[in-house]
Structures are given as C-alpha cells and as structure tokens.
C-alpha cells in the first residue's frame, strides 16, 4: 500500500484549477464545487501550506495570502476573482474580524474564519461579524470539503433579495434563477432579469460573481441620482413610489424596486436626523441638498454617496470617485474601506436597504446584512473615516451614530441606517468637509464613538432587539454592505450556522446553544459538524471506526438530553479526541446510542487508561472498535438529533417565532450561515 494511494483514492483527479470553467465565478458548473476559487489568509506559514494543500485536494483553486492587507488588495483588484475567503482570526497586521468586515462590505463574499481559539467569545464574534462559518484549528480536510455550501447559499440568498419582498417579480426572478442555475456562464447571468437591466453599473460584479443569477436591482449612482432627483422634485413628503417611478422613467424598474429603495432612503434620512441632533448643520445640509449630495457626482462625498447608494458600485468606481473628490488615494491598503465603505454606506442608503422603514421594525431590517461587519469596536478610526466620507456624502443618513462612532467602524457607516458614515469621516474629515452637504464636515471629522453608533443602531434596529442588541449593531453595518443579499444573509442569527453551531452546540451546553441560537430545537443544525464528523469518520484515517465512535458519542451526548452536555467545548471541537473521553464518561448515560456507545466507552476506557494524559491516543489505540456497527446507530441518532440539519429556514423561523418577530423571510434570508442575530 502506498501513502500516495490514500489521497488518490479519496480524491478524484480532475484538474481542479485552471481547467475549471469557473472563470467568472460560475458556481453552477458541472464540476462544482471543484474549481471553487478560494482565498486563504493566514500569517502562519505552516497552516497556510497545509490549508493550501487540503483545498487543492478538494479540487479548489487556491490562492494564499500571508497578510490581510495583501488579501484585500487581491480581492479589490479582482472583484470577481474569488468565491470564498478563509481567514485566520489572529493576524499581526489586521484583525481577522476587520478583514471580515471589509470583505463583507466591499465584496460581499462568504468568509470563513478559523482559529486555534475555540472560545465562545471568539466564535460569537465571528458570527456577529458576519462570518459564514468558523473553523477550529487544526482544520481537517473534511471541514473544507463543504465550504462550497456557503458560496451557493450566499448566491441563493442574493437572489432572493428581500428588496422586493414578496413581489411577484422576485418570485419570477427566483424561478428564472433556478432555471438558469445550470448556467455556467458568469454571474452576469443574473442580469438577464429585468431588474438588472437597469443596472448601469458594469462593474457590479459582486452581484454576479456567483454564477447564480441575481436578479436584484442594483442601484447604481446614476440610478440613485435619478431617484433623488425624482424625490426632490416631488418633495420628500410627497414622494411616493409610483410617482417616483414615473419621474425616473427607467425601463425595467418596478414600483417595488422604487418602494424598497425609498424605504431605505427614508430610514437613512431618519437616521441622519437622529444623529443630526448633534449636528444640526448636518441635518440641514443633508436634507436640503439631498439632491446635490446625492446627485452630484462632482462632489467627492456625493459621489460616494451615490455610489454607496447604489451599493453596487464596485469599489473601484467608488475609489475613483473618492480619489477624485476627496483627493485621497483610494489605494490605501487599509483603506479599502473608504472605497468600499463608501460604497457600502451608500448601499446602505440605497436599495440595499431592503427594509423599508416598516421593515426595519422587523428583525430584518437591520440585520440582514452582515450584522457585524461593522462592529464598531474593530474599526479603526481611519477606516471609519473613510466610511464617513462616503457616508457623509450620502447625506448624513441618520447620523445617529455620532461621528465618533462612525470612525470606528466603517461598517457602521455602511449600515447606513445608523449612518455612522458621517462619523466615520473621522479620517476623511477633510473629505467630508468638501462635501457640499457639509453635513459631515463638522461632524465628520469627529470621532464618533462606536458606542454612539452602536447605540444608535441598536435603537433603530428593532429586529435586533429580537435577537440581540449586539447583532444589531453589526447588522447595521453590514446592512449597506451586502448589497446583494444584504440584510438577509448575514444578520440572521440562525443558529443553524453550521460552522458556528457546531462549535456552539458542541462545545456549549445546551443552554448555550439555545441561547445563542434561540432555537427552540436547541440543536442548531450543525451541518458542518455532521458533515465533518461523518466524513471524518469514514475517511479520516483508517480509524474510521474511531471516527464514528466519536460521532456517536457526541450525538449520544446530545441525545441524552443534555445529560452529556458536560462535554467540554474542546471535546466537541475536536471530535476525534476528546469525545472519546467523554464517551467513556457518558457511557452510562448514553443509552440511546446503545451498544455503540458502550463499546466505544469501553474502548475509551482502555484508551483512557493507556493515555491518561493524552486522551486522544486512546482513540487511536482503541480504534479497533467496530466502526460499521456504530455507524448505523450514529446515523440514526444523528438524524434524530438534527432532524433539521438542513432546515435552516425552519430553524430560523422557529427562532424568529420564538422571538416574536415576524418572519420576514423575504427580508432576511435566513441563511443559516449568517448568525449575526443570534440572540444571546
């Protein structure tokens, strides 16, 4: 036998990279998920190398990056060049969560966080910041095998953009999308939908990066300008979607599109006025010059605004605008934010605000978008500043967030709702001043305390209330950012987030899980866990049996009705090893698992005896335990436990219902992987 055989047999040999036809991020190619374009960011060269190898073994196209800045540059330079990003949490040059925020805001790609740190707080942070998954190091190849699900999910949610909640168009779009799911063409397929037609943005690749069609309307700068012109003409009070639509006279645009965009805009305004209390001029200037601010492209801030409104504007264009207007170099590595942020900010304002004011009331409103992208705490003032600029230009959307806040988190800015933007300007204070609206000027340069923004956000987001205050802020931030699926995707605290749920459920006691997820079910469908465990079991080593055993034990733990909840997080996280010990301990309790458990337990015992200090070893040592037999029960037990493993939406609904929040599914897109709103 050869070691080499192992790999060969487990993996198919198709050429993963290069030959794959996912040049434009087409996710629906036949070979999918092979060829998935992954960007890995980790400052640890050992891990980076291992990950690269593993991903290649999964037939993905891998790009490595040692530092976050370089990664951002790569991403910005190649908007549609990647499908998913995997990033370490602890990095010297930039915090992983910050990177996460940036990516979410600028590119709206699914991001998986990973770390050797499996502490609940860190994992929660990942969730709130909008990570679609969280992997614990050491990462096993099984965990990577399924990351494509996040890409698909994101695309899907992108389609069902809550922009048109319940609109027929949306339904049609979705159908179309699904019909065309087989396109292997680039994401631009989505453009086929009529909504896309009016997209002027040519560069809005974010929407299309995923091959799945995204029939959303992209509110480009021009479109938004037209919108603003119409609104101003009618007067903000009298601006009704129908009339606006008529005035805009854009083919393909529907009343619903306008309505949702208007809602967002109104929210934005409200936010600004809330914030403006502190900065009167801001408000005034904002209100009045709405037109100019939004409409004029000449003004730096404005452009940004428009851009952000469009949300779709690619960072590049935004950057351009910024650069032009602000005179700043958009190329700032760290500042991808400015561009992006601005974009986001606007997007925030723009249609991306899926939630109309009314909707805001619901959970969705703030959350849908990466909730925690903009967790203010992480943002650096600089970043905020950038955002601010853009945000400010937007017209001070509710400058609820004090300027200081804005600075902190670019994301916040994006939230648009909270309009931290104006605040973010901190750095761009100069820019802001330039803005004609001048709303921002005074305010902008200030540092808006994150707290402020957060408060602002929190208050504004009703939805978050349902889940957590915390997520709210994050959601706000994310809101604008994710233009495509914004709200829905990230913010939902669906416990179902596989990666995270795994950790949470596993590591945490039941109550934790439930609290986190608020799932009535208590068990978050941990797709990943299962996927990981199961495949792990069979393939992992030859210790398949061992693997199974672990699963069984874990499951049994769960099954036992939390009796075994005592399993420590570490155990769960490292199913292979620690679980054994646990099983041993829980042997008695795991009745459901039945014989399997016992056998495992026994095995464990032996193992434990052998290596008291090294629990893991027993696994290896005792692997003689039967695998197959256990496998069956495992499967059943597993299924029992996680009947809804794949029913994220159901879980979400359940959660929401529990929360008392109306399930605005169309708004939120309970993706499951965006657990931003996990109620804590």
């Amino acid at each position, binding site marked *: 036998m050869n*070691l080499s055989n192992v790999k060969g047999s487990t993996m198919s040999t198709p050429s993963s990279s290069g030959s794959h036809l996912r040049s434009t991020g087409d996710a629906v190619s036949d070979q999918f998920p092979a060829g998935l374009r992954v960007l890995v960011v980790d400052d640890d060269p*050992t891990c980076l190398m*291992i990950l690269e*190898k593993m991903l290649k073994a999964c037939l993905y196209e891998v790009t490595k990056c040692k530092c976050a800045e370089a990664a951002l540059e790569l991403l910005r330079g190649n908007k549609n060049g990647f499908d998913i990003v995997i990033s370490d949490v602890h990095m010297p040059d930039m915090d992983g969560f910050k990177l996460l925020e940036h990516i979410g805001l600028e590119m709206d790609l699914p991001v998986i966080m990973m770390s050797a740190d499996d502490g609940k707080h860190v994992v929660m942070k990942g969730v709130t910041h909008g990570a679609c998954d969280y992997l614990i*190091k*050491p990462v096993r190849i099984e965990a990577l095998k399924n990351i494509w699900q996040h890409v698909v999910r994101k695309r899907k949610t992108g389609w069902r953009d809550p922009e048109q909640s319940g609109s027929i168009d949306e339904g049609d779009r979705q159908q179309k999308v699904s019909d065309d799911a087989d396109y292997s063409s680039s994401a631009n397929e989505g453009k086929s939908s009529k909504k896309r037609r009016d997209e002027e943005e040519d560069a809005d690749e974010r929407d299309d990066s995923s091959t799945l069609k995204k029939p959303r309307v992209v509110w480009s700068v021009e479109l938004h300008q037209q919108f603003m012109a119409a609104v101003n003409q009618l007067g903000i009070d009298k601006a009704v979607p129908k009339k606006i639509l008529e005035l805009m006279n854009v083919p393909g645009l529907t009343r619903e599109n306008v309505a949702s965009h208007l809602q967002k805009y109104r929210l934005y305004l409200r936010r600004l006025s809330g914030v403006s209390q502190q900065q009167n001029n801001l408000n005034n200037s904002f209100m009045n010059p709405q037109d100019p601010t939004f409409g004029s492209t000449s003004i730096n801030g404005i452009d940004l605004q428009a851009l952000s409104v469009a949300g779709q504007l690619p960072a590049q264009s935004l950057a351009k605008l910024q650069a032009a207007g602000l005179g700043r170099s958009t190329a700032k590595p760290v500042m991808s934010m400015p561009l992006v942020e601005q974009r986001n900010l606007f997007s925030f304002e723009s249609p991306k605000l899926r939630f109309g004011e009314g909707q805001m009331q619901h959970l969705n409103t703030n959350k849908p978008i990466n909730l925690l992208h903009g967790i203010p705490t992480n943002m650096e003032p600089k970043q905020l500043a950038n955002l601010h600029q853009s945000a400010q230009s937007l017209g001070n959307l509710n400058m609820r967030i004090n300027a200081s806040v804005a600075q902190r988190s670019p994301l916040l800015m994006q939230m648009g709702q909270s309009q931290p933007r104006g605040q973010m300007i901190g750095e761009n204070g100069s820019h802001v001043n330039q803005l004609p609206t001048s709303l921002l000027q005074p305010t902008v340069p200030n540092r808006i305390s994150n707290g402020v923004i957060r408060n602002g956000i929190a208050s504004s987001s009703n939805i978050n209330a349902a889940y957590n205050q915390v997520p709210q802020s994050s959601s706000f931030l994310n809101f604008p950012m994710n233009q495509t699926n914004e709200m829905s995707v990230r913010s939902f605290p669906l416990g179902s987030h596989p990666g995270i749920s795994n950790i949470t459920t596993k590591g945490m006691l039941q109550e934790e899980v439930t609290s986190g997820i608020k799932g009535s079910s208590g068990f978050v469908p941990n797709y990943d866990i299962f996927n990981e465990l199961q495949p792990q079991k069979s393939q992992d080593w030859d210790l398949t049996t061992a693997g199974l055993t672990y699963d069984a034990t874990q499951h049994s733990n769960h099954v036992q009705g939390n009796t075994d909840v005592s399993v420590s997080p570490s155990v769960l996280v490292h199913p292979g090893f620690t679980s054994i010990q646990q099983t041993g301990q829980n042997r008695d309790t795991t009745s459901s698992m039945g014989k399997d458990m016992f056998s495992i337990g026994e095995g464990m015992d032996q193992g434990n005896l052998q290596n008291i200090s*090294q629990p893991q070893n027993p696994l290896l040592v005792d692997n003689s335990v039967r695998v197959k037999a256990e496998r069956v029960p495992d499967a059943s037990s597993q299924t029992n436990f996680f009947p809804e493993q794949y029913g994220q939406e159901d879980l979400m609904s359940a959660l929401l219902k529990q929360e008392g929040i109306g399930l605005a599914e169309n708004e939120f897109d309970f993706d499951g992987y965006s657990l931003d709103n996990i109620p804590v």
Partner: protein
Amino acid sequence: MEVGQMQRQWIDYTRSLFIEGFLDAQFLQLEQLQDDNNPDFVVEVVSLFFQDSHKLLNDLTVALDQKSVDFKMVDAHVHQLKGSSSSIGAQRVKNCCIAFRNLCEEQNIDGCLKCLHQVKQECCLVKNKLETLFRLEQQIMAAGGSIPLMELSF
C-alpha cells in the same frame, strides 16, 4: 535491513509516536494529503513548522525576558504556536501551549518561563522523533519499498 523489516519498523515506530502522544490524528491528515504530486509534502510542512516554531520560541524567550512582560504579545505568540503545532499534529507541543496560555492569562511569569522551557523541550523531542521517522522512510524508499498506509488499528 530488508524492506519488509524496515516497513515493520516504521509501522511500530509510528504507532509508538501516536501512543505516546507525540502525534495525533492531524498528522495522519497530513499524510493523506501527500501524494505522487507532492511526495515530500509532510516533510516540507514539518520542516516549515520547525522553522517557524524556532522563531516563535525565540521571540517568546525575548518577550519573557523583558523587565515588563507584555503578556498580550506572549499570548499571541503562544496562540500561533498552538495553531501551527495542532495543524501538524504535534500534540504534546500543542498541549503545552494550552497550558502556557493559561499561565499567560494569570500573568504568571515564573510559570510562563517554566512552560516555555517545556515547550522548547517538547518541540525538540518531536522534532527528533519525526526526523527519525523520515529517515526511516527515506531508507524504505531507497530500498525500493513503499511507506505503509497508516491504519492505526492497533
């Protein structure tokens, strides 16, 4: 020594490494990643690890030698070491790192120093063990044999 014998030796040696806790299942994952296209993958990764850890340990030594120890930085280094050691399956090193981090949290300098010493030792140990293992592998390959598939079904 003939190939069969060497192979058996290799199996026994590998098994002992697992039993004694020097390596864990993650190491097997690495081995599984190795294939004809990357016949030296494991060796490369392990070498990379030791290079990196060497640097980290130096940094740690310096950091703990300061008059006023910056525990955050120490913790960051240890965290990194923990991550990379767990990625290659160096279990004992990883466990040491876990203990180390706890001591960092407590800001226990003496404890940290002791732990640092221990981590260094463990790194050395596993490095030697792996070097022995790789040498054995080389010998097997040179003799025309192939490395047995690690089944770990003791």
